[in-house]
């Protein structure tokens, strides 16, 4: 629960479970060392992955122990009754509301939101076909028309989300969008041909210089370059991500 205070009983059992998990990690570590001695060179990579997982889990558990003691932020927002019963078009704005609140209260620094299926009642859209079916539009006009309804909706909701972030002032004098990188995109450049090239990606905020459509020579600039730029901006000390060949040329900060 993001905003509901955790009860004392639950809190102490969460802490206990946390502690237990940490001691389990201590226990299994010696088995991992034993195994590492016995196995072949290439297998050691697997064991190293296991060790790495132990380390990061320990770190995460320690971090969340600190989180547990942090009081939940108080917000004056309440969800409508039975939000799960609502149509997709009415539910999507709620996700963005929650995302805004979570960022505003610093309850998290990373949010990923994925929308796929529309659910019953065509999601409340005036469309007659399923989303997946529409993406295989085969250039048929009526399909493209319906698909556009859905995709315009998503773009508009994202725009409204950016407006919300802009309206929130941050302690450093900037607004919340200045301090947040918001990326909208799709895993398909053209779902009809199932192509994952030339992805539609829209980046806002984060103190980058915006306001232009950046084009790149086909096949030369992996999308990962953008992700690498974002990771670095986020403060990660890394110079590669997936198939990146560098940071994104032309993407500059203000």
């Amino acid at each position: 629960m993001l905003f509901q205070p955790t009860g004392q009983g639950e809190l102490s059992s969460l802490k206990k479970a946390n502690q237990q998990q940490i001691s389990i990690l201590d226990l299994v570590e010696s088995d991992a060392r034993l195994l590492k001695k016995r196995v072949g060179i290439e297998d050691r990579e697997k064991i190293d992955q296991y060790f790495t997982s132990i380390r990061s889990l320990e770190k995460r558990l320690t971090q969340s122990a600190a989180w547990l003691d942090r009081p939940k932020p108080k917000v004056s927002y309440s969800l409508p009754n039975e939000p799960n019963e609502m149509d997709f078009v009415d539910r999507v704005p709620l996700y963005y509301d929650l995302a805004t609140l979570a960022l505003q209260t610093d309850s998290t620094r990373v949010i990923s939101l994925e929308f796929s299926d529309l659910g019953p009642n065509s999601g409340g859209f005036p469309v007659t076909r399923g989303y997946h079916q529409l993406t295989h539009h085969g250039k048929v006009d009526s399909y493209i028309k319906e698909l556009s309804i859905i995709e315009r909706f998503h773009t508009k909701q994202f725009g409204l989300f950016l407006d919300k972030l802009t309206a929130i002032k941050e302690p450093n004098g900037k607004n919340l969008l200045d301090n947040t990188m918001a990326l909208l995109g799709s895993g398909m450049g053209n779902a009809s041909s199932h192509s994952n090239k030339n992805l539609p990606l829209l980046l806002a905020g984060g103190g980058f210089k915006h306001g232009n459509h950046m084009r790149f020579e086909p096949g030369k600039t992996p999308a990962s370059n953008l992700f690498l730029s974002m990771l670095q901006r986020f403060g990660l000390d890394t110079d590669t991500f997936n198939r990146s060949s560098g940071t994104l040329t032309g993407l500059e900060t203000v």
Partner: protein
Amino acid sequence: MSIHSFTLVVAVFWSGLVTAKAEAIPPSVPVFIKRYCIDCHNADSEKGDRNFESLITSRTSKGHHETLKEVLDQLNLGEMPPRKNSIAQPSNNERREIVAILSDYLKTMEAGKVPYATIMRRLTRYEYNYTMRDLLGVDTKAADATRFFPADLKSHGFSNYGPAQALSDVQLQHYIKAARTYLDRALVFGQQKPDVQKWIFKPKDLPHEKKNVGTVRYRVISADGKHLDIGHGKPSESGPTYPKEFAARGVPKDGLYRISVKATAVGRNHPYAPELIPADLTQPLQMGLWHVPGLSYLAKRTSEGRVLVEVFDLADNKPQTYEATVWMPAGSSPFVHWINGIGATKGPLQKIIQRYYPEAKRKTPYEVDRLKEAGLPVPKDALVQKVWISDLYKGPRIRIFEMSIEGPFHDQWPPLSHQGIAGTETNASNLNVEQVLLKFASKAFRNPVKLEEITQYIDYFKDQTAKGVAADEALKQALTAMLTSPRFLFLDEGGEDGGKQLDEFQLATRLSYTLWCSTPDERLLNLASKGTLSQSKILNSEIERLLKDDRSKAFIKRFSDAWLRLDKIGSMPPGTKQFPAYFSDRLESAMKNETYYFVSHLLQENHPISKFVDAPYSFLNGALARHYGVNGVAGENFTKVQFPPKARRGGLLGHASVLTATANGVETSPVTRGVWVLESLLGTPPSPPPPDVPPIEPDTRGAVTIREQLTKHRHVAACADCHDKIDPWGFALEFFDPIGGLREHYPANKERGTGKGRRIDGSGKLPSGEHVRNEVELRELLVSRRVQLTRNLTCKLFLHATGREPDYRDYKVINQIVEKSISEGNGFRDLIHMVITSELFSRR
């Protein structure tokens, strides 16, 4: 397609380990390449995106290693040079010679470089669950503790392939939690044997109404309260019928419960026009029985976590008791539903009222208002319902008389799951914990463990109890840790040297994970400790024992999923309007079951490998038979159905599962199906498309067929090289729609899948020069390639069994197995024996 924002993507890569030494290529290699390959694979034409020019001039294999391996593969398969008149062919001797030289050369190059051994594997999600079931003796189907595990990464469908597997802190944490959940299920410290109770529910205890006017749901109780009629229903239903008060708390304890429902079907022969009842009434009415771990799972729009126990074919007008015994966790509650029903009742009932019972029609307030507005007289009782459709309706319904739950049944206390770990002692303070932990570790780690190897666990237990933690809690903690240890989670096949013989325990483990996808049982571990498992007579009889055991169903399912890519089914579901039966008849699970039954049958009866592609029979239930247009099969159970000679079905190519897995739910693609034939049946996957070639973009305006689009595609030479090899296999399967239904025409209305569009043309010319016109001819052709089929199946079995992709260093043994198999009748069961008793199986 989906929209992401703020996406952080985590990807894991496996980098190759090949760093070949730069040593001189034997001179005969460039000579051969110059003579037979270079005309096409030169800098100008680069057929198939391959250019061998630098190979000829180069003195060392530096940078050419992978290319040489490819050349060797192609020569081995006889795919290259292509058999065309204009292209010179090496003689058989030349071919054999160059294959030998290349193999030797590559082998020397790679000696000590590329691991010629299985990379250590982690238990896959499904292996983990089967292992927990067998190791702890718990049920893992209900409230599956692995539900939130990250998906296993796969290599060509196989998730037990070590190099492709990844581990993360998230996964590790899930391991801790899942182990604890299952241990809590297995152990009953401090608990008494719970009393058996019986709860009986009458119709009034179920959701009901006394009258119905034709609403979305129809659950009408009879005037005497003796039965409840359910008139609505479909497979995924938001209006389940369950004991209302009981479900708030559910069953009090974990355990086995007997659920009984006295029910019958009524109204299958109804007096109405057939088109008014949107259900297939040639099939018996079916009652689905589920259970859910809590009331929240009964809410609208929930389906995850519901466990379908059984689907009963109801007898008509004959009340009978249908029952099932099932393990349920505490808090669970059962529900029933008319699973092959007419969906929502409102539409059909309103039509029936209009046509047959106008007196049951009452004016709505809206209609009354309209009358008033128009100044027309409004009868005084306009809004009073005088006649109820529920008093007149004779349509199909399932009729429930009584429902009961009895349990929990324990034939022993403590239950076997507890005894397996702690014996009959239920007070943890009385246990000899050292012995308990030692025994458990030996079972969990699948080999005899010495006390000094588990001191940390014992010390932990002592330390915790000294701090005042209860003994049972401390013990569960220590056991949870063992089940999180890499010695449990990884299949340790030990040792530094590749190609080393597995020891007896490792062999037992590999054997049981091959045929059960689960941990070795006591008998296997006993044989291992005696050191006799590897004796061929004992090994063969153990293979038989394991195959006869029910646990081998896991092999059938998981191997078929990976080999035939059935795992893809469900990831791209078809349109609900185009293929309503896919959902209403639960075809998705039916089609997978057909294939499992079929593969299992070929295994049980040791049929020749060619039967996989050409068998005059299959296994169908009512829904699937209807999908196939086969008469005479009804109901939920699968039966063997014989097809007439030259039938369109018969063999895997006619299985709806395969045809669905190779389509995208909306349209078929000969390319995808062609690739499937090459990869899953023939074991000659085409090379991936060269970069920068755009995929086919379907243009379905007008009636442009996929064939015409592909023809355009093939005009580009770079595409033609591969597509000439791929597409013809797929064209022959175009007579099957995206969910495997037969068709002669493309639909005119793509959206609804109705109408006659263009006639289907299934003809194509294979690279070998043979012509096929449809799937029947394709089948015949594949049968004639039984060496290739057998070889591919052998390789896939090895991959499943060893988690290692066989390469040229294994080809000698594999070829021997293929030859032996073919000379000895080519039986599937025999082939499994040959694979497991071969030196490749018992080597690391």
